[in-house]
């Protein structure tokens, strides 16, 4: 009984962590290039909605994901124009996008699906990987995930490789740390930052699409519930390192999953408190770690060439 519940808990913890892992990994790279996308949550929400819509319209969840990613990239592109080219305040731009995303998805959802739609939309099936299932305790939880969940871990590896072993990754780190030096080394600061923001957009898009077409197979208003903000927190908590960021995302995922485990174990803890837990953790993480880990020196600072 306990084993079974643990398996469910681990499985749901991983599942809940996946969108945050996607978003945080992309955001980590973008922040290493010096651009903070506070609009991450908006990108995810728009992608979740678009993915649901496209999947419902075409019957193909894969097309749904593609559409979601495209929309998130479009948001990212506008964010990049505003914060890189026009040097707008990155925080203000991000907040604006999030409000826009919440308003527009809620409106469109009610217009298109009707106010109380519970119709399931076509989603991905869970893979069943027997070779993973044999691992004790965590095996069943690991084996029964959708393909996108494995992609999220793959993206962490890919992002780590990019940062460590490619000249693009080196350019990203240089641009986020000392854009003037990078510029003088002949690197295009703007281009590098655009690519960084678009990368964050693609991954946030995958994370958002995961929520609607791989996890719940439906769209609900404000379904990200601040997952984008949690992802930004995870980046800080993880000290801008891909692996620590992954760990922070998992922590948030499992903290969220406690709301299923605790009632099942018949412990007397108010559910509302459990719902609050990940956000409380995020707050503690920021308060406790923000001063200690060193953020990229040029984070949120627009670059302007000068003497």
């Amino acid at each position, binding site marked *: 009984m306990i084993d079974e519940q643990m398996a469910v808990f681990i499985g749901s913890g991983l599942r809940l962590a996946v969108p945050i892992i996607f978003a945080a990994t992309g955001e980590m790279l973008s922040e290493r290039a010096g651009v903070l996308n506070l609009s991450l949550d908006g990108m995810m929400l728009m992608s979740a909605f678009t993915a649901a819509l496209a999947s419902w319209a075409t019957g193909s969840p894969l097309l749904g994901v593609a559409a979601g990613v495209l929309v998130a990239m479009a948001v990212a592109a506008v964010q990049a124009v505003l914060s890189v080219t026009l040097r707008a305040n990155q925080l203000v731009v991000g907040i604006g996008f999030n409000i826009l995303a919440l308003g527009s998805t809620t409106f469109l959802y009610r217009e298109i699906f009707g106010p109380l739609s519970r119709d399931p939309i076509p989603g991905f099936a869970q893979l069943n990987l027997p070779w993973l299932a044999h691992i004790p305790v965590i095996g069943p939880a690991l084996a029964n995930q959708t393909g996108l969940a494995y992609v999220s871990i793959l993206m962490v590896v890919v992002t780590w490789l990019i940062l460590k072993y490619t000249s693009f990754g080196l350019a990203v780190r240089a641009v986020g740390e000392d854009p003037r030096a990078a510029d003088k*080394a002949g690197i295009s600061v703007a281009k590098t930052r655009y690519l960084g923001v678009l990368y964050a957009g693609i991954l946030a898009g995958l994370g958002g699409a995961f929520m609607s077409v791989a996890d719940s197979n439906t769209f609900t208003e404000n379904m990200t519930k601040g997952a984008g903000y949690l992802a930004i927190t995870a980046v800080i908590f993880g000290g801008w390192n891909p692996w620590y960021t992954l760990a922070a995302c998992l922590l948030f995922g499992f903290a969220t999953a406690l709301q299923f485990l605790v009632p099942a174990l018949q412990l007397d803890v108010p559910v509302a408190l459990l719902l609050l837990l990940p956000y409380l953790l995020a707050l503690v993480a920021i308060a406790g770690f923000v001063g200690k880990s060193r953020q990229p020196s040029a984070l949120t600072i627009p670059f302007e060439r000068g003497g």
Partner: protein
Amino acid sequence: MALLELSGLTKRFGAFTALDDISLLIERGEVHCLLGENGAGKSTLCNLVFGVHRPDAGTMTLGGEPFDPRGPAEALQRGVVMVHQHFSLVPNMSVAENLMLGRASAVLKPQDIIVRMEQLAAEYGLEIDPEARIDELSVGERQRVEIIKCLLGDPQLLVLDEPTAVLQPGEIDALLAICRQVALRGKSVILVTHKLGEISRVADRTTVLRQGRIIETVTMEGADIRSLVRSMVGRDVQSAGSVLAAAVDIEGKTPAKPSDAAGPVSPGEAVLQISDLVYRDPHGVPRLDGLSLTVGTGEIVGIAGVEGNGQTELGLILAGLAAPSAGAIVVGGTQVGGCTPQEITDAGVGIVPEDRHAVACIKELSVAENLFLGAIGKFSRFGLLDKSARRKAAEAMMRDFDVRASSPDVSMASLSGGNQQKAVLARELSLDPLVFLLAAQPTRGLDVGAIEAVYNRIRAARDDGLGVLLISSELEELMAVSDRIAVIYRGKLVGELAAGAFSREAIGAMMSGHAHV
């Protein structure tokens, strides 16, 4: 045929003309020095050649082809490289990573860079550990990385903007030797400096700039150094007095002690007493390591040292902008270590901070507001500001200290650097009580006239019985003004010389960590 040809280059920043109709030829295989005072347009000229700025008028050709770089990337592509006054290295990356930046293939190949570094080490004697992190290197080593970065691509033209300003004497020699090596291999070097001693040792030709114009270009063989100085400052050498003697530093000779009729008052009781001062920066790196120092009344003590050896931190601590980790600082009997700037001011300490723009004044506010920044209450009646009284007081102070501005109400930003600094000095020297003055890099970025004024103020303060601590990276400045010079190395004082016993060689040796000479 000349490698680089500039014709009619003009560059304006707003209403200010930084360069005015510059025409110049740079030959292949020559070391060409650009000489001029601060603000003469030397750096702007370099930035045009390197594509950082674009000219408003005029054209350039490189190797006979038109040359109009829209950015550093394009200049690099054409074989023009530049070592900037402020290094362009990413501090938390390794040497190899910095060298790969902007030139690597899709996947990084650190091995290729290391092989190339070994070649350059053999050719020019430029050796450095590829794995070392930039922020762990000394200033001289960082500059070496910059030069290696420039030479990696086998350039045609190497531009060095004030490369020796941050170096200690031994490192300067090595750098000048590298310049000659580069020229010997058929490449051209443009070297910007305001130190004549260096020019006579390395240059084939020298171009003198003043206020954005070329005054003359001379071949160095048989050239008259004195006439170069005259071209540089635009008046006779004598009139600028000790400053020029100091700045010129021909052949590294010690300039004569300024003739100052009153002579230094023999130092009296201790006004500043620092004992066993320790400071660790936020990363835990020790910056000051048991520094002890006494400054008496009526005495100017100079602190010499290569930048980054703790003098900046010492200045910050004395100003109350950083708290010491251990040790005591006593000013006139009051313990001020770790006190707030207000408490330190109340103890009678005047501060001319190193970073004038960030710390000493608020550029957006008016001159009057800046002059009484710490004494706002003085002109307040029933909580309302009495502006006319403040303006009157400000006018008097500006007259006393020769702060030139059209009115006390103009913004601080509209003043020249020299007048800003005079205003800062006016404010600090008008404090009451006042027993001690800290002057950190007080002449950085100022022109000759303003430098002389600052020196005179500092000397006058000393003659009035103040204790003065002068922190400066200009050895000539320290030797011209100080009564005593203490040398800081790795957060400790390693030696001391009294006026009359100053010598560049001795101080230089101590600056590089060699014990007493």
